[in-house]
């Protein structure tokens, strides 16, 4: 596996000392990893995500994604970088209400050949189990369906990195689980995913690596094992027992 993301002693300072600043963060993410980033609000985890996505530029230090140094790019180059390399899934879907599902999915593909983009869009909708709503408008869909449309839109340009910021935050448990299972299936096909969540249960269920951010710093970077353990090695139920 090769390195996809590298932050080296990266700092982001906001005017007026706003919260969410980053204070000397170093991090690498390998291709194919499913990584979760956790931290309280204001810890800097969203800033970290925005820097990696090329939505924001560091005050100092480097941000390199897929070999491109984002800190040196101009606005136009950053926009191209985002379109070609980053897929974004948000908590509140961010679909355009006056476009159909398929049109929403095709937004990032504007500059590609219409027919090949449309074929890929339909294929993604099929893969995500929402082919039948291709011509409907977002307001007619359930939250879980809307998030799947957002995932299809995020994948249309085959991004090297999928960033998911609290993707289940606005969904009920069942739809949330379905959305996470879809992300997991993409990961199994090799998709690199960075998931921001405050939910430790969700993070450890899907991600084998959990990064904790606090006060603008990475305070822990845990790589977890995936082992089939015997029940008794995970839970021990006990109580009073008769003594012989």
């Amino acid at each position: 596996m090769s390195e996809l993301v590298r932050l080296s002693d990266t700092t982001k300072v906001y005017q007026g000392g706003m919260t969410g600043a980053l204070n000397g963060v170093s991090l690498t993410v390998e291709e194919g990893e499913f990584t979760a980033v956790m931290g309280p609000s204001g810890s800097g985890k969203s800033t970290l995500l925005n820097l990696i996505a090329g939505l924001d530029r560091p005050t100092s230090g480097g941000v390199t994604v897929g070999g491109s140094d984002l800190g040196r790019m101009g606005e136009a180059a950053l926009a191209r970088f985002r379109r070609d390399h980053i897929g974004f899934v948000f908590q509140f879907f961010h679909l355009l209400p006056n476009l159909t599902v398929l049109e929403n999915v095709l937004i990032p593909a504007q500059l590609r050949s219409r027919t090949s983009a449309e074929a890929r869009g339909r294929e993604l909708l099929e893969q995500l189990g929402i082919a039948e709503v291709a011509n409907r408008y977002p307001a007619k869909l359930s939250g879980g369906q809307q998030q799947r449309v957002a995932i299809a839109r995020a994948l249309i340009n085959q991004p090297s990195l999928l960033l998911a910021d609290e993707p289940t935050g606005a969904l009920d448990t069942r739809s949330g689980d379905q959305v996470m299972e879809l992300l997991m299936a993409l990961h199994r096909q090799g998709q690199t995913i960075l998931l921001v969540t405050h939910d430790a249960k969700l993070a450890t269920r899907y991600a084998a690596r959990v990064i904790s951010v606090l006060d603008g710093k990475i305070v822990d970077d845990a790589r977890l094992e995936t082992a089939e353990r015997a029940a008794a090695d995970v839970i021990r139920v006990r109580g009073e027992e008769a003594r012989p």
Partner: protein
Amino acid sequence: MSLKYGVMGLLAEEPLHGYEVKNRFEAMLGGTWEVNIGQIYTTLQRLERDGLVRPVGERGDRGKLLYEVSDAGRKALNEWLAQPESGPQELREDIYVKLLLAARLANGNLGPLLSRQKRAYLQRLRDLNQLEARARKDGRTDLANLVRGALLHTEADIKWIDELSEMGISGESA
């Protein structure tokens, strides 16, 4: 939970001999509580002495003796089932004592202790997630619910560690 009521509960379904009680008890708990057969026999003898279970018939093949729950046993079992869990909360893990000692010995610098503990809890959460998924796949909803209880406990432990870490770090910079 007490083994005594576990044994009575299983006998309330149907008469069983000692080994069947052991096997069913362990299967019910999905391997999260292993008991040895000696404990089962000791428990059965005490329950018999207290009139809560009684033998059915004579000893059969290889000395096997079936037990059933008595009326008094059924009554005691129902009372136990209806009673909410009360009393002090049990904190059995070493971390609680480690925390107090480390606060005295390390002048309040708990950072390394807390982050190692958090890692251990995250790993446990991952293991529990897998166990829950396995229980659901096996159709053991009851066991999956038990695992969910453990999951939520571990989530609370993580929140606690996070809270302590936040207090520690802001205390340092102040």
